[in-house]
């Protein structure tokens, strides 16, 4: 039977509530659980405008050799820096330390770098999909590149990652180059010419994935992807339409058409 709170119980609550709130505001504890085994896949670039990915020996070798570390365990706390701070709420973006993800990229090639040479849209941004007592679900976008040799660079468009912690254990991890044509840029000094040549191509598969991991919950990731793009690029706020739709809308709304023609994709780092 319910009863009115006594003075003593109120006083106890007054003592306890700040303590609980302080705990709520604290950043999450270190991750626990078993190491995940991470498998890496890295396919050769299938097509490119100037065929540099097949002409330059170091790039050709990448395609033939695949990832430097095809499979290895990941310690439970290795990606704790990607866990959202307590103040972050669902639907919010924050800027985590990208270093642990760049370290993970060294499984493809030891030349992974977190700072792009020709762009200031560096590092990682993360979006909190869900935080409950049982689960923390995060979508992350990372910009990074690889120095393959002294004058050979391989720059993926972006990496998209999904990280899920359940009961403080990392249970799902994926980090992949979206398979959009085009999605990789390269700069390489050509021995016979001595200048730095550029090319852009399509890599169908470049991903890290936890073996036997739980599947993350099915979600519509479009709002999170848009928020992450906007966190890197102010122009992502513009209502860009596919070419046929833009022509139709310009005609319907009697507005001029602004057409941007590109050699590589606008809203990533592949060009």
């Amino acid at each position: 039977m319910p009863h009115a709170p006594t003075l003593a119980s109120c006083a106890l609550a007054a003592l306890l509530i700040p303590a609980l709130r302080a705990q709520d505001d604290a950043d999450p504890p270190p991750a626990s659980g078993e190491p995940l085994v991470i498998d890496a896949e890295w396919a050769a670039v299938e097509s490119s405008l100037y065929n540099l990915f097949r002409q330059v020996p170091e790039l050709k070798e990448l395609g033939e050799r695949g990832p430097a570390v095809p499979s290895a365990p990941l310690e439970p706390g290795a990606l704790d820096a990607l866990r959202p701070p307590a103040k972050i709420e669902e639907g919010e973006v924050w800027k985590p330390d990208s270093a642990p993800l760049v370290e993970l990229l060294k499984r493809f090639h030891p030349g992974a770098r977190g700072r792009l040479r020709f762009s200031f849209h560096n590092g990682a941004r993360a979006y909190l999909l869900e935080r409950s007592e049982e689960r923390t679900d995060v979508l992350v976008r990372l910009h990074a590149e690889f120095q393959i040799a002294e004058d050979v660079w391989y720059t993926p468009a972006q990496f998209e990652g999904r990280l899920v912690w359940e009961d403080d254990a990392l249970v799902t991890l994926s980090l992949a180059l979206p398979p959009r044509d085009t999605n990789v840029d390269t700069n390489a000094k050509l021995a016979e010419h001595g200048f730095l040549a550029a090319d852009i191509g399509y890599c169908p598969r470049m991903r890290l994935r936890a073996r036997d991991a739980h599947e993350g919950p099915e979600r519509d990731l479009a709002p999170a992807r848009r928020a992450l793009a906007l966190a890197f690029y102010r122009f992502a706020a513009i209502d860009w339409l596919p070419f046929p739709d833009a022509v139709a809308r310009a005609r319907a709304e009697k507005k001029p058409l602004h057409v941007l023609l590109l050699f590589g994709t606008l809203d990533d780092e592949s060009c």
Partner: protein
Amino acid sequence: MRAGPLSDSAVIETLDEGFVSTWILAKDLPGVAADESLDAEVRRIAGEVHGRYAYPVDTQVLAPDGRFLGQRPANGATGGARGYRDFLTGSLKDL
């Protein structure tokens, strides 16, 4: 373009208020021009835009009916964000 004109608030506002915007890989335009499932006007405009394309990054402004109004290849372009905004508004004088 990413770090220059398209990161400028005034350019973004000009585009949002006065234009319909699209970006496309130049290599994809011939496919649009040849796609018989698309509207004939879309195909015609795609072919014309591709014919004028200046490698590697180019901007074209068209009237609502697809008539060509202006072009600004990124190579050699000057004036930064202000120059881009002047190009956009200047292209509309023949509208």
